[in-house]
């Protein structure tokens, strides 16, 4: 088997605060293979987003954060890489999509300008004209028809869905090996979200990009991911191929999470303990039904 694009082993994270030390991640392990779409699912505060930030090296710079464990990108330990090399990975080999597309774009620059900045990360000497035509080509891939208008617009002049597509196009502009999507489109309405996710799925398949998809939305995860990790209170409690996990959730927390999904039919959302002791049960791994 080839080296995983992203391989996290025993990652621990704690924050030193005024009131003492808070452990956030209790040794989580996960891996994403080249071209694979992996989802990390959990409730708010379970440690999903901080994991993404560690992968991108954003938390390491914080003095109050204490991190241990190993994060390997394409087989290389991120921690042992020189600062400059690690920095060079960002925006080129890995990139990220955020929750709110509109606020993730700088309001005072035109989209074309921002595309130019992004493409300059991949090719420092790219000219404005080249950047704009490249941008138009990528935008066409995310089904943006009038690319010229979009490139000439400011972010607040575009709809949320359009901004989201722009974000996806930007994130994939430099052909990254790994794309981290942190609850993409949560700020959008559901139909637009579904549309853009569909586009994103098509695009990562074509570009063979590995995706770490962070979400609390199980419906979306089921649609999008090949493999699922369920995270609860800083621990991975269940992992396996999407179908296996959804059809036969084994861990009590996963079952509770599934039960909490609102349905169109049926009798509403069941009562679930905020914090059942069962949830601390050990890791469940689905070995059957999937290739990993």
């Amino acid at each position, binding site marked *: 088997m080839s080296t995983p694009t992203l391989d996290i082993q025993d990652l621990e994270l704690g924050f030193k605060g005024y009131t003492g030390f808070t452990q956030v991640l209790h040794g989580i392990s996960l891996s994403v293979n080249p071209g694979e779409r992996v989802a990390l699912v959990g409730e708010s505060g379970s440690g999903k987003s901080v994991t993404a930030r560690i992968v*991108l090296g954003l938390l390491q710079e914080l003095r109050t954060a204490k991190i241990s464990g190993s994060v390997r990108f394409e087989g290389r330990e991120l921690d042992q890489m020189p600062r400059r090399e690690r920095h060079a*990975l*960002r*925006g080129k080999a890995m*990139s990220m999509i955020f929750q709110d597309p509109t606020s*993730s774009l*700088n309001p005072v*620059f035109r989209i074309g300008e921002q595309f130019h*900045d992004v493409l300059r*990360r991949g090719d420092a000497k790219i000219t404005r004209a080249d950047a704009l035509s490249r941008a138009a080509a990528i935008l066409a891939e995310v089904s943006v028809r009038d690319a010229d208008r979009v490139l000439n617009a400011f972010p607040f002049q575009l709809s949320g869905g359009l901004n989201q597509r722009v974000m996806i196009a930007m994130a994939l502009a430099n052909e990254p090996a790994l794309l981290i999507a942190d609850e993409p489109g949560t700020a959008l309405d559901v139909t637009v979200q579904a549309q853009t996710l569909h586009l994103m799925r098509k695009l990562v398949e074509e570009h063979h990009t590995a995706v770490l998809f962070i979400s609390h939305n199980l419906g979306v995860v089921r649609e999008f991911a090949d493999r699922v990790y369920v995270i609860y209170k800083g621990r991975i409690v269940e992992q396996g191929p999407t179908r296996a996990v959804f059809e036969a959730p084994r861990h009590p927390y996963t079952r509770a999470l599934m039960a909490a999904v609102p349905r169109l039919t049926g009798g509403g959302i069941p009562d679930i303990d905020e914090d059942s002791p069962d949830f601390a049960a050990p890791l469940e791994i689905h070995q059957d039904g999937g290739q990993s």
Partner: protein
Amino acid sequence: MKRTFAILTANPLSLLGLILVFVVVFSAVFADFIAPFPEHSGAVVDFANFNKAPEWPYIFGTDLVGRDLFSRILYAYRISLILGVVVLAIAVPIGVTIGLVAGYLGGRTEYLLMRMTDVFLSVPPLVLAMAIMGVLKPTLANGMLAVTAMWWPWYTRLVYNITRGEKEEGYVLAAEVIGASRAHIIFREILPNCVPAIVTKMTLDMGFVILIASSLSFLGLGVQPPTPDLGSMVADGAKYLPDSWWLTIFPGLAILVAVFGFNLIGDALRDILGAEQ
């Protein structure tokens, strides 16, 4: 830009501001051509016509050594505007840079820079300027220096507060994620978002700088004679109120026109650019 101008001229108050500022700038720039007695801006004496009430050709009257007040006011505008522009040209970049750096980097850098700013802010501005002018020689250059020293912290405060807010915006995080440098984030991502507030404050401040400079001159610490200055003209004339009222009233009105004009424009810009603060 076009839009801004259109809105400015649509509102009667801001249109008035625009006209006042235009008159002030025009008279400062073309003082040589407008002034009936250009030589009166220097050390000239004409005792035949001293202390005259307004009458042709001395439309604003003459001062105690017979110089045309109108001519002197035009030249005083020139000094005031240069002072305002120079002060802001120095104070704004310094203040803005410190505010951006402190706001974005945070931690110890922020603590150090902002406490330093607080020290400057805690001294009453006029007192600080007087102290500086007292130590140095009271010349025009030192006057600018003194006003600059008391002016930059306000920009630091303003920009610091905006930066603290913008720092949490998604686009800053996005820039960090794709590996933009700190300098890029500070000056190319955050600074452009502060520009409306900075421009608005600069327009408002133009009037206040003129006012402060006049106050300093009024106290005898600003521009020195025989260079014409609105503040010192008011100060000189005040001794002869109410008999020689024109000595005080006209320079006073001149200050009013300039400050009022800039403030009107500043207010209008604040509405247009939607800057808080």
